């Protein structure tokens, strides 16, 4: 009985806190961890531009967390107007499990719906004492590699696949599993998220090399003061595409379809691309890319679609229960 009264009370609170549709528009952007700094700038720039264009005031609320966790929250009812996540697989799941947007969402915006891209690079301690220059240096004895667990972190899957892709390319597909097993044998701490790994490497002094998104590596050197770490760009790495999408069912409900769409389109404009490049993501716009060419080293990039047959396939083969990643750790313990 008391429980029912309590529940009734909570429901009435729920009703009281439900949003009121005012003239001013509010968007909810559900994003992943490393984009906080990026969207802080982009949101403000877009709001100013939208105000000048339509006279409406738009407020963009931000939610950040692990990419998979954020996708789950949207599936379970977090009413995101737009999602900007670490990998397409997470948005695929929103389309598949909750049917909040069509399965073909990735075709709706240019460049696979990714207004910016990045890649996986190495962060090493100043002076590069272990002489780490490419992927094959990571499997040497006595090298400590810091990378998060691909089973609990979306970003870490890019790291893992980048290593796998390098091995396939240089050693052949048959040797890839062996190479990656050796690499993970050198991992002393397997954090649950990308930022946890960065902290373990930067603050706790663990390991000799951190596998990280390029933008994260730049940010970490920036925050820690440039004299403690160096960025090493390997000969080949993976094209990491963090996609964006409008969540159709939610914008329908909120009546925000137009502004949500405009926000994502805005990300492709030169003004936004400038901000993107300044926050260490690689811009898509050729002019902006040329301007910042000095900041981003050229390297050979392979893609998830061409080399791994897309996310769904990579996910089942590598990261599902009993998949290759699990086998690697099983083997290490036997």
């Amino acid at each position, binding site marked *: 009985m008391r*429980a029912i009264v309590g529940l009734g009370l909570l429901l009435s609170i729920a009703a009281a806190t439900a949003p009121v549709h005012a003239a001013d528009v509010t968007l909810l952007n559900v994003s992943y961890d490393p984009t906080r700094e990026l969207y802080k700038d982009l949101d403000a720039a877009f709001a100013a531009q939208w105000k000048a264009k339509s006279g409406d005031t738009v407020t963009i609320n931000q939610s950040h967390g692990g990419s998979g966790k954020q996708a*789950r929250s949207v599936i379970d009812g977090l009413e995101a107007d737009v999602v900007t996540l670490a990998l397409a697989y997470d948005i695929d*799941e929103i389309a598949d499990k909750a049917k909040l947007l069509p399965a073909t969402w990735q075709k709706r915006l240019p460049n696979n719906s990714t207004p910016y891209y990045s890649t996986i690079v190495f962060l090493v301690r100043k002076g590069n004492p272990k002489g780490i220059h490419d992927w094959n240096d990571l499997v040497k004895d006595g090298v400590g590699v810091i990378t998060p667990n691909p*089973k*609990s972190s979306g970003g870490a899957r890019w790291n893992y696949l980048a290593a796998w892709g390098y091995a396939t390319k240089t050693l052949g597909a048959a040797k890839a599993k062996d190479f990656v097993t050796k690499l993970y044998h050198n*991992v002393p701490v*397997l*954090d649950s998220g990308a930022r*946890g790994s960065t902290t373990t490497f930067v603050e706790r002094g663990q390991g000799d090399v951190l596998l990280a998104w390029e933008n994260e590596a730049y940010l970490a050197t920036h925050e820690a003061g440039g004299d403690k770490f160096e960025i090493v760009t390997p000969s080949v790495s993976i094209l990491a595409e963090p996609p964006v999408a409008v969540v159709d069912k939610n914008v329908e409900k909120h009546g925000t379809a137009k502004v949500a769409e405009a926000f994502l389109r805005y990300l492709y404009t030169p003004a936004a691309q400038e901000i993107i490049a300044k926050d260490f993501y690689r811009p898509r716009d050729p002019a902006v890319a040329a301007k910042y060419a000095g900041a981003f080293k050229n390297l050979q990039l392979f893609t998830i679609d061409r080399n791994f047959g897309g996310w769904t396939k990579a996910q089942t083969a590598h990261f599902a229960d009993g998949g290759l990643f699990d086998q690697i*750790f099983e083997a290490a313990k036997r």
Partner: protein
Amino acid sequence: MIVLLPLSAIFIKTAGLGWREFVAVALSRRALAAYRLSFGAAALAAAINAVFGLLVAWVLVRYDFAGKRVVSALVDLPFALPTAVAGIALTALYAPNGWIGSLLPFKVAFEPVGVVVALTFIGLPFVVRTVEPVLADLGADVEEAAASLGAGRWTTFRRVVLPAVLPALVTGFALAFARGVGEYGSVIFIAGNLPFRSEIAPLLIVQQLEQYNYRGATAIAATMLTASFAILVAINLLQAWDRRKMAAL
């Protein structure tokens, strides 16, 4: 009630899983290793807390010293500090470049020992706070009687004080243990999270969720719940039996 209704959701969700799948997820070798670490570290931490918690409670109840009130308030700190903050602070302390870690000849953070350290921190108030009232309640007269009968201080403690506080101590142990088994926030920072080595069971739940496998997650949760519930019931039954025995005397 408030506990049962939400918890039933776990079991109903798990029931959607076939038996074979359940075994594959919840009883895999990796899961078993994680249970061993979670339950083992929780038991060890609770045991450490039982010893030192009793000591702290004894000192707080029986002795007077400067700053006692501050110390007493400090005991509740682990309740108040968010577990993530506790985890970050402990990791910073015990990491090889931390205040304590740099003094120790062996590694604590990022090793299974780190899990025990975190769980000891989390569980201490449970033991101290359950033992304290009983110790305070225990009159000096019984001890005096024992002493007048010629019992030494140690004998008095062992024969008179210990049996009296034992039920409370066991309750404290049980609570600290129960809390330790499920603890996530503080542990993930300080454990190395390596499968088979320093990976705790709650982390496996998170990983199942990350694969959008809610059923797998609830399967592990249900297994852990059943085990902790069985242990808690055993402890509480033991206590009820003990109380009846005491009453009969």
